[in-house]
């Protein structure tokens, strides 16, 4: 079970398990993003490299225009694999 939707303040809310079978949906949702945005991981239990790749691609595209994603409320397992991948160097993580 995975879901992605916009929150009341324009943030992106992820929930459930973001595995490789859901990345096209995430890509579709993020491709129209053209300004800085917070991505809320509060309800996200799991992510793999497929979902991380979509976030990275979005970050690169936004950076070219002076914008960025801020990732918030990651659980400790996701925070750890983001650290292993060096994502803490390329994203603002709160």
């Amino acid at each position, binding site marked *: 079970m995975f879901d992605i939707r916009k929150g009341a303040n324009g943030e992106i809310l992820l929930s459930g*398990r973001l*595995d*490789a*079978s859901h990345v096209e949906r995430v890509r579709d949702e993020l491709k129209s993003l053209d300004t800085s945005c917070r991505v809320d991981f509060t309800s996200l239990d*799991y992510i*793999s*490299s*497929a979902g*991380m*790749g979509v976030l*990275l*691609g979005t*970050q*690169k595209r936004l*950076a070219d225009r002076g914008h960025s994603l801020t990732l918030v409320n990651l659980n400790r*397992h996701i925070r750890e*694999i983001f650290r*292993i*991948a*060096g994502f803490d*160097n*390329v994203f603002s993580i709160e």
Partner: protein
Amino acid sequence: MVRSFKRDLSSLEPLFEFTGDFAATQRFDDAITFAMNLAIEELFTNMVKYGGGDDIVSIGLEVRGDDLVIEFVHPGAGEFDPTATAPFDAARPLEAREPGGVGLHLVRSVMDEVAYEHTNGDARVTLVKHLRGA
């Protein structure tokens, strides 16, 4: 427990049910379960994208002493050694990053041992996670 899965991303749902049942039976904590799911998804999706060979991959899960042992068998697969890929540079800045490569880096990081052999036309990948002190 050994189960076979069609080499397709649609298999991820039943694959996670399989690992979830095993984790519940073994009473794994959420750190072990997360590492097991991540390593299995990364290797399975690699086999879906690049493996060639048969359309079926078998995955075995077993607790052997203090270790979780995960064994993939992919009949007819081409030779691709996940233990011999270039080291991943996690310090690269955003502008130097390209897609790919991080999945196997994560597998090597969350597992304690990764072994590969290609014999009689079959690829076999064995992952070991120490359950104590994890």
